[in-house]
C-alpha cells in the first residue's frame, strides 16, 4: 500500500509518498526531565524562602545582592581585577612570543634559558609566586640597585617601596602567564608550514620580517583560541591576590562580607561580575577568531547578529568577503 497525497481516498497511487520522520521518544523524556529540573531551579532561585536564625527570608537574598552589586568598593575591585587581567595578559603574551622564538632558536643558550624559565614558572603554583613576589623579594633583596654588574650601583631602591601588593600581584600573574603563553605561541609557530618561511626567504624577507609578516599572522589562528581561554582563566585567577590583601573584585566582596556576615550574597555579587566579564570576553574571542580565519575558509560564516537579522528581517546577508582591504600592507617597518 502506498500512502496517497493529502490523505484523501485511494485512487491515485503513484504520486509522491508522504515522508514520516523517525520518532525520538527518548528525546521527549529527556526534554521533559530537563524542563522539570529547570523549573525547580528557578523556583529555589527566586521564589522559595528559608528560615535562618528564626528569621524567614528569601533563599538567595537577591535584595542584598542587588544592594551591593553596584557598591563603590565593588567597582574599585572590578577596576583592580581588570587592570591585573590586562597587564598580566599583555605582558604574558609579549613574554610568551619572546620565549617561544627563543625556544625555537638554534642557539642552545637561548633555547635552554627559555626552557628553564618555562620549567620554573610553569612548575610552581601561581599562588606561591604571587606571595613570593610580595614577601620574598624584599626579604631576599631588601635593596635593589641599578648599575654595572658587580660594581657599586648608581641607584639604590628599597624593595619594600618598589614592590607594592599591586606590582607583586601583576608580576606574579604576568611571569606565570608568560610561561604558558610561550608554549601556546610555540605550538602556533610550528603549526605553520615550513614552505611559508622558505617562500618568504626566497623573496628576500629577513628573519624578523618573515616571523612578523608571514609566520605569526598564520600562527594566530592556532594561538587565538587557547589565548582566549587563558584570558578568561586569568580574569578569575586574579582573585588569588586575595592572599596578599590586594583589593580586587573577590577581595572587595569578601571585605564587605567580613563586616556584615552576608557571605553568600557577596560571593554571588562577585560571581555575577566575573560571569559578566567572561561573557564579554567570549564574544570578543569569537570576532578575533573570525578575523584571523580570513584566507583559511573560502567564505566566512555569518556572525550571530547577521544570522538574527537574516531570520527576523528576511534580509539576505551576503557571506562576508574573507578580507578587509589589507591595512597590513602599509610600508612601515
Amino acid at each position, binding site marked *: 500500500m502506498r500512502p496517497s497525497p493529502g490523505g484523501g481516498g485511494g485512487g491515485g497511487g503513484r504520486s509522491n509518498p508522504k515522508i514520516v520522520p523517525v520518532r525520538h521518544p527518548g528525546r521527549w523524556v529527556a526534554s521533559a526531565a530537563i524542563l522539570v529540573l529547570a523549573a525547580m531551579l528557578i523556583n529555589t532561585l527566586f521564589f522559595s524562602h528559608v528560615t535562618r536564625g528564626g528569621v524567614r527570608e528569601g533563599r538567595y537574598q537577591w535584595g542584598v545582592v542587588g544592594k551591593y552589586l553596584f557598591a563603590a568598593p565593588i567597582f574599585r575591585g572590578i577596576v583592580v581585577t581588570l587592570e591585573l587581567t590586562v597587564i598580566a595578559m599583555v605582558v604574558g603574551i609579549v613574554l610568551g612570543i619572546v620565549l617561544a622564538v627563543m625556544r625555537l632558536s638554534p642557539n642552545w643558550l637561548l633555547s635552554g634559558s627559555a626552557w628553564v624559565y618555562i620549567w620554573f614558572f610553569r612548575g610552581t603554583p601561581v599562588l606561591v609566586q604571587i606571595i613570593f613576589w610580595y614577601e620574598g623579594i624584599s626579604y631576599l633583596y631588601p635593596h635593589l640597585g641599578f648599575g654595572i654588574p658587580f660594581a657599586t650601583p648608581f641607584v639604590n631602591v628599597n624593595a619594600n617601596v618598589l614592590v607594592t601588593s599591586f606590582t607583586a600581584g601583576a608580576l606574579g600573574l604576568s611571569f606565570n602567564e608568560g610561561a604558558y603563553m610561550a608554549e601556546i605561541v610555540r605550538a602556533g609557530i610550528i603549526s605553520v608550514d615550513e614552505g611559508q618561511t622558505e617562500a618568504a626567504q626566497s623573496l628576500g624577507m629577513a628573519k624578523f620580517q618573515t616571523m612578523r609578516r608571514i609566520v605569526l599572522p598564520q600562527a594566530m589562528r592556532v594561538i587565538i583560541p587557547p589565548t582566549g581561554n587563558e584570558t578568561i582563566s586569568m580574569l578569575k585567577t586574579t582573585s588569588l591576590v586575595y592572599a596578599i590583601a590586594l583589593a580586587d573584585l573577590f577581595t572587595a566582596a569578601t571585605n564587605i562580607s567580613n563586616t556584615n556576615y552576608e557571605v553568600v550574597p557577596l560571593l554571588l555579587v562577585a560571581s555575577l561580575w566575573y560571569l559578566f566579564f567572561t561573557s564579554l570576553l567570549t564574544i570578543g574571542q569569537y570576532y578575533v577568531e573570525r578575523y584571523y580565519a580570513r*584566507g583559511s575558509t573560502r567564505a566566512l560564516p555569518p556572525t550571530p547578529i547577521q544570522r538574527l537579522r537574516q531570520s527576523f528581517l528576511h534580509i539576505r546577508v551576503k557571506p562576508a568577503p574573507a578580507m578587509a582591504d589589507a591595512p597590513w600592507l602599509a610600508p612601515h617597518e
Partner: protein
Amino acid sequence: MVRATQVHKSFGRLEVLRGIDLVVNPGEVLCLIGPSGSGKSTFLRCINHLEKIDGGELSVDGELVGYRRSGDRLFELKDREVCGKRAEIGMVFQRFNLFPHMSVLDNVMSAPVWVKKESVAATRARAHQLLERVGLADKEKSYPNQLSGGQQQRVAIARALAMQPKLMLFDEPTSALDPELVGEVLDVIRALALEGMTMIVVTHEMGFAREVGDTLVFMDGGVVVESGDPRAVLNAPQHERTKSFLSKVL
C-alpha cells in the same frame, strides 16, 4: 649567470650533492631532470642559499652565494646580505607556498613593498600588470585557497617576478597540478623564456624541456650524468643511466 664547481652538500651522513659542475649563461633556459633523490631540488635551493653548501664553489652573477671572499678567506654573509642576494633570484615551489592569509594582490605586492621598500602605488600598478600577464587580473581580491592549483602557481610566478629577478628557479612547478592544469603554467614559463629570462627549471615534463630548454641536464646520485642540447639528450642519450631513466618516463 650561475657557475657551480664541485658543489657538495650533505644532510648528516647522507651526501646529496657529490660534486656538481654546471654553468648557466644569461638568457639561457636550463632544464634539470633526474629521478627523485638525485639532488635536483637541493641544488636549486643551494643557488639562493636556502641550503648552505659544504664544499665547492657556487656563484650567481659572478658573486659567491652566501660568502664574501677577502684574500684567501671566505666570510659568511650576514642575514641581511643574504636577503639582498635572494631578492634578486625568483623561486617557484612545487607546493606554490602562497601566503594564505593574504589576497592574491597582496601576495604579489608583499616582497617589493616590504623588502625593497618600493611605493605601494607603483608596486600595485606593476602587480596589476603581472597578474594580467599570467591571466589572473580578475582574481586580485581572491585568497589563494579560492584558486585552483594552476592559478595558484601562476600567482606564485607573478609574485616572484614582482621582485624583477635576474634569475628564476622553478622547483618542479607542475608536479602538484592536475594534468589538465599543467599547460597553463607551462605557457607562462614558456612566455618568460621567450622574453629572455635566465631560468633553471627542475621538471618532469620532457616535452616542455625539449621545446623550451636550451640545455638539458640529467642528474643522478648527486652528480651531473649528462648534459647538452635537449633534443640530442632526449633522442640519443649517451649514458646507460640516462637511457634507462628516459625509457621509463618518455
